[in-house]
């Protein structure tokens, strides 16, 4: 499958800006750099949309625009948390007003399929429309849906996205689980050997196509997910199996994009994999660009696609001897949901 275009609303303004100087953050969370939405969406509609809907719809429209596609053959999103701001608004009002005096708007926009539905509504697109909500597999399953649908011969392309937002309440709640480090910095995220990471968010869309075209960003050669590996050996076995299925050896990989997030326990598995199975393979960690969140895999694919298309890496990355031709993405969420993507230059 070919990645014809990729767009992101993320804590980074653009890939171009990352080539000059990636945006840095301190504290325990990263925030999306939001564009002027009026260029993308009818101002009358913007007023009714919550932040995640605006981010999702804008990234989707930008992605279609870059691909030169007006109507995609499928719209498929992944979101672990869904539309949190609307969910919280309805929930707190329901509790606060003892189930009286409620307004339907936030309920209507709280359903997990809202972003995909709003894209369809805006485009008047009657095609296939689906939403996956499985934690750290949400985006990966959306992508698998797109890939298997295209393989089935249903449509020529599919718009696939990963969308998750941070709200003040959700950040407060997730913080209570001890996930974040209070005074962290993206500049030193991986170096401190401490517990906790930085919270992240993003809206990333890819236009996946069964056929090659001239402006393609990358070729998605393969993908694989695995759930709750019991040991580091199991992770390495899964990764070796993935390489074998794609007829490639570890030394053929020019760049690994890895999901380390600065939490010592979380990062141990990435280090083990790199040291034992991919020794000598250059790698780039990406969570200091986007933060840690369940659909961050989408950001990694966006990043990998841009690196392959331009042959360039973000300014803070170690230089490679030559523009990479094969990129392997390895990401995991809480060591429960692991995902692998193999990308090639087009």
């Amino acid at each position, binding site marked *: 499958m070919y990645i014809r275009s990729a767009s992101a609303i993320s804590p980074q303004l653009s890939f171009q800006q990352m080539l000059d100087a990636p945006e840095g953050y301190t504290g325990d969370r990263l925030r999306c750099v939001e564009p002027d939405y009026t260029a993308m969406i009818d101002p009358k509609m913007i007023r009714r949309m919550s932040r995640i809907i605006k981010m999702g719809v804008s990234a989707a429209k930008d992605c279609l625009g870059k691909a030169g596609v007006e109507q995609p053959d499928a719209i498929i999103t992944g979101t672990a948390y869904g539309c949190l701001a609307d969910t919280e608004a309805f929930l707190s009002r329901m509790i606060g007003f003892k189930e009286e005096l409620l307004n339907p708007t936030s309920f209507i926009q709280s359903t997990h399929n809202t972003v995909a539905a709003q894209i369809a*509504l805006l485009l008047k697109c009657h095609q296939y429309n689906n939403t996956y909500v499985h934690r750290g597999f949400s985006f990966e399953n959306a992508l698998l849906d797109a890939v298997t649908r295209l393989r089935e011969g249903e449509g020529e392309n599919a718009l696939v996205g990963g969308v998750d937002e941070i709200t003040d309440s959700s950040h407060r709640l997730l913080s209570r689980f001890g996930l974040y480090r209070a005074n962290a910095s993206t500049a030193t995220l991986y170096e401190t050997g401490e517990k906790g990471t930085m919270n992240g968010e993003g809206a990333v869309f890819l236009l996946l196509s069964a056929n090659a075209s001239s402006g393609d960003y990358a070729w998605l050669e393969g993908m694989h997910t695995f759930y709750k590996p019991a040991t580091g050996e199991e992770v390495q076995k899964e990764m070796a199996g993935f390489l074998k299925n794609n007829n490639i050896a570890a030394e053929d990989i020019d760049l690994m994009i890895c999901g380390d997030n600065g939490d010592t326990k979380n990062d141990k598995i990435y280090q083990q994999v790199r040291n034992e199975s991919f020794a000598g393979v250059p790698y780039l960690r990406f969570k200091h660009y986007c933060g840690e969140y369940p659909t961050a895999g989408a950001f990694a694919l966006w990043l990998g696609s841009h690196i392959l298309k331009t042959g360039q890496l973000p300014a803070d990355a170690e230089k490679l001897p030559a523009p990479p031709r094969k990129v392997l993405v390895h990401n995991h969420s809480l060591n429960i949901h692991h995902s692998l993507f193999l990308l090639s230059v087009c």
Partner: protein
Amino acid sequence: MFKPVCIAGAGVISAIGNDVQEHMTSFEKGEAGMGAMQYLQSVHELPVAEVKLNNAALARLAGLPAHISRTALLSAVAALEALISAGLQDITPWRTGFISANTVGGMDKTEDFYADFMKDPARGRLRDLVHHECGAATELVADRLGIKNHISTISTACSSSANSIFFAARLIRQGFLDIAVAGGVDALTRFTLNGFNTLMILDKQHCQPFDENRRGLNLGEGAGYLVLVSDEVAATLQEKPAAALSGFSNANDAYHQTASSPDGTGSYLAMKGALEKAGLAPGDIDYINLHGTGTANNDIAEGTAIKRLFENKYPKMSSTKSFTGHTLGGSGALEAVFSVLALKFGFIYPNLRLETPMKELPFVPETGFQKGLPIRHVLSNSFGFGGNCSSLIFSKVE
């Protein structure tokens, strides 16, 4: 054309029964599941179709702790029944997936948590929040079933679990999986009840789908799962599967976030697409399990789409939501189970409480229970908020 994927097992729990057998009995007796709230706590006096077991009883059936979300408990009960009924001796040699769906995950517990959290952000028991995400219920059940090779959760409002069933079939057909337990669940929550109440589409009486004087829907809860198997797995089964998923389609109405278009564009496209995928003509369908929520808007949109697609060859049809209420993320899967039973036993389910047929429509849903009919192809409709429309076709395995 799609090569059908065999269905080896089914499990279901809803207001009309805790397993498949109890459902068949309730259908035959015409006993609906709506009533006053027993377990759901709300200030509103509205009929709901609750599963007639408390969480402690469900936990015993599920083999899971009683303090977790009712969503996970309902899901586990039906998924376990489905897997056991498939008669697979051992799933470990096969690549097995669990593909579920729901709309509000562990919201039943989050509601309790949030009331404390609103008073003080440091308060609220985290164990009531930890399974909030839609995917969390799926994982509790996947772990209970010992399924690991593929796990996913879909959420497209009321069409959610119809999508999980065809996604499972596609993963099997393309060789990703050998066995998939696929379906969906939703437990009743105050969040959903109040949400639908603000939309003013809840019936204060027992709902009357496809009736001229219909007033709205009754919310229900439940879970349904099918076990889909590859041809290789099917060949190992003692009992030959009676039914297969032969067609499916997903389309979007792209009209309004919650309302269906008057001509039911999305519904029409979903049904038409499913027929094409199955290589069937409208006249081949013997029974339609309607989405039939009982709202003014859904039933006219769905009815208009059926009128356009089936013209003068109307199959028998009914809305089993007149028994189970609308189980939202569970409904597509519950009705998939009922469709499979219709093929296996030749059932036609009654559309309860139908008094005055809709005057805009040239057909009338069935009002009596029938069994032993020669039913070869069943169409099941699931349409939801966000314009998400899905139709499944189940066919008898000859």
